[in-house]
């Protein structure tokens, strides 16, 4: 079974975000980056599926050279090889163009399964995977939290809202968008890190990486307007804040 896993690099969740001079994206110069949360789970599920049924796990990431760190980490965890679609502005082409470019890069691989994260933590489009499935004419399921690839048909458990779930059956090849928490993510072992050094990372350049056809574009970004009057306590002193809070909860909010 050949499984392709899409992994995107995004700004570190704890990073302090600043808006760039043009006002249309964040200042990336001094940022630290990490793998998109659900993509890490997508990789883990792919590795487990391979361990059960054999085959190969191929990681695909699109972006500038810095995304190599995501790729190398995935190889160290056990992915067999990688495809890096290289380009500086590829993060901003919008989900339709992104899916088109990824489709071209992975089509020759003829995978049995494609796993993506359910949404990116920066743009949060929640659609690159589904569009990719349509471009490749594959059936898909989103927000998947369990995968059973043992039968001829693929059986997956989807999360619905408010604690509901549903199983779907579909033929392979298929594309699944994976939800966080599907399984516990392994750490890279020292052996894995050593082995990763010898694994193949194929670089491909997209034919045309312009923003043409992006369809949607950001004019400007800004910090959300606060709608609620929050009483901030402690004025930077956490302990003083805690003391004031206890008093307020008792005498003002009357909840303790």
């Amino acid at each position: 079974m050949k499984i392709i896993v899409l992994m995107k690099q995004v700004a570190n969740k704890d990073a302090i975000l600043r808006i760039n001079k043009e006002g249309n994206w964040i200042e990336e110069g001094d940022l630290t980056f990490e793998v998109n949360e659900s993509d890490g789970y997508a990789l883990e599920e792919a590795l487990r599926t391979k361990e059960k049924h054999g085959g190969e796990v191929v990681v695909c990431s699109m972006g500038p050279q810095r995304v190599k760190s995501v790729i190398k980490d995935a190889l160290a965890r056990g992915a067999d090889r990688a495809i890096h679609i290289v380009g500086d502005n590829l993060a901003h082409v919008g989900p339709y163009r992104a899916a088109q470019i990824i489709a071209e890069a992975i089509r020759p691989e003829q995978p049995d399964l494609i796993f993506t994260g359910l949404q990116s933590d920066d743009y949060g489009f929640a659609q690159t995977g589904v569009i990719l499935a349509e471009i490749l004419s594959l059936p898909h399921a989103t927000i998947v939290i369990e995968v059973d690839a043992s039968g001829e048909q693929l059986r997956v458990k989807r999360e619905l809202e408010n604690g509901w779930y549903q199983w779907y059956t579909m033929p392979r090849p298929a594309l699944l968008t994976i939800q966080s928490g599907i399984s516990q993510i392994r750490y890279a072992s020292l052996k894995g890190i050593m082995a990763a050094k010898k694994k193949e990372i194929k670089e491909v350049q997209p034919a045309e990486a312009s923003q043409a056809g992006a369809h949607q574009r950001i004019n400007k970004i800004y910090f959300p307007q606060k709608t609620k009057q929050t009483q901030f306590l402690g004025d930077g002193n956490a302990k003083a804040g805690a003391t004031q809070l206890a008093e307020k909860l008792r005498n003002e909010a009357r909840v303790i």
Partner: protein
Amino acid sequence: MANGILVFAEHRDGVFGKTSFEAVAAAQQLGAELGQSVTAVVLSTDAGLAQEVAAYDLSRVVSAENPKLSEYTPDAYTDAMERVVRSLDPAYVIMPHTYLVRDFAPKLAARFARSVVSDCIRASVEGGAVTFARRIFLGKIDADVQTDGEPPVFATFQSGAYRSEQARRGASSAQVESMTVEVGEVRMKPEPAFQEVKQAVDLTKADTIVAVGRGIKSQENLALVEQLAAALGGDIAASRPICDAGWLPIDRQIGSSGQTVAPKLYIALGISGAIQHLVGMKNSSTIVAVNKDPEAPIFDIADYGIVGDLFEVIPVLTEEVKKLKG
């Protein structure tokens, strides 16, 4: 020429969700500002269901029908909606950003060689052009988005972006138009939806909830939070990553895929305040947030906030609460 607004009214087994009427409210507002008519579409097996939607102030309701629409699948819904959109030729297609819509709307948009302007929180019209606002970076930043190219524009709205009560009712019932739509091969087979066996903890009855997020750093540190919860006589709960990591069982998760609660007191410790968490607790009476990031979106809904390290706040707060409670 493309004209009008088409709004997708979602139902599960014949029950319309509140978010469908929020989408109707969004579509009506856009329609008024653009001077365009609003049509709703209901996918089902017969026209009966569309009647409920016809009570709203709409130019008409299209009931797109096919036996394959008796249950939701992305293949059937995409085929049906593609037929409806091609036949009505709307300028905008408005949908709620639900799990169901997330599952098929990008596929639908891809049939028109474009993406969805997803999870919008606002839309404004200036000079006939619509600017959509979406939240990016897990709620930390807002982005104004515009589209270009030929219509239609597909957009989804976040739950709560509009209120369902804002959806205007019509003076008389809107006309319902049946449309038989072709649906091709449906590759996926759904089994009945289900809930996991009865949850061990029911947080919906708790008066006080102390919720913890990724800021707690490790499972061992949960002991601190448990002490605070004990002092307050409250229950402990968590954001998704804590349950994903297995530090707390899933029945303690608050949010769109966990429990929805509204206690008298909700204390959020080291939780950033992503929308999927907020929908599960925003109706709590008093909300306290402790976060070291002053820009964390959780502060937007907090009554009391402390900007600082939760490891400094929790022990002091626990002691103070014990003193007050005697």
